[in-house]
């Protein structure tokens, strides 16, 4: 399937994948993240249950220290 990941087209060798699996696959190792799927911000408890499907638009933001 093809998804949009941070505005870049990515081909994933699966029909669907959970957010947690996507983070591992794409090596997002940063602990502090905000993830948006098709415009909706996910809660951390949803990472294991939310699946990404063909055509989905996923954005991963890093939370950065400083304030």
């Amino acid at each position, binding site marked *: 399937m093809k998804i949009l990941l941070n505005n870049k087209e990515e081909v994933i060798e699966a029909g669907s994948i959970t957010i947690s699996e996507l983070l591992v696959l794409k090596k997002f190792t940063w602990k*502090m993240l905000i993830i*948006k799927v098709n415009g909706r*911000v996910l*809660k951390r408890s949803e990472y294991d249950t939310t699946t990404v499907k063909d055509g989905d638009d996923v954005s991963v*933001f890093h*939370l*950065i*220290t400083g*304030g």
Partner: protein
Amino acid sequence: MEKNFPAIVRDYLSTCTVGIAGCGGLGSTCAINLARAGVGKLVIADFDIVTPENLERQYYFRDQVGKLKVHALKDNIERIDPSISVKAFDLKLCSSDIMELFAGCDIIVEAFDRAEMKQMIIETTLNDMPDKHLVTGCGLAGWGKTDILRVERLGKVIVCGDQVSEVAPETPLTAPRVGIVANMEANEVIELLMQKFLKENEDLTK
């Protein structure tokens, strides 16, 4: 447009309540400018005291070193406008505090230093206060690069900053850049408050 529109806007803002989580570089400057803009009620929280190093970028003064930041900030706001109500809470915020202290706020500003605290407040608002707007600051270390500072609106979570600049020995926090992001946060707050006002008072701008 009515002649006294600015006065009407200030009257409206004086009825608004904004919560500010953290009173360091982001929170102190954001609070001061929300006060100057006329926001009438502020709820501020922080557990720290003012140090000499804080004066490099935070809105405090030499004679306030050693004071609790929330008390010093309340004093500074009241010196600008004594009619502003400032509720100051001296504590390290946890999720349940956020829900309790900021329940009555129109908007919450995230002004923490550490990423894990930023994540905690984002998750708390998303999980437990889904109707509340949260304005956060993310990526503001270093100097220059004004052109990459931006605002990203993720539903009710609004992220101000460049989303990349981390604090490091070669990119310390500096007053101008922290101040810009603090004011981006304050500006987003005013915009959200005014969107609501203008929606309810369409006739005023015709």
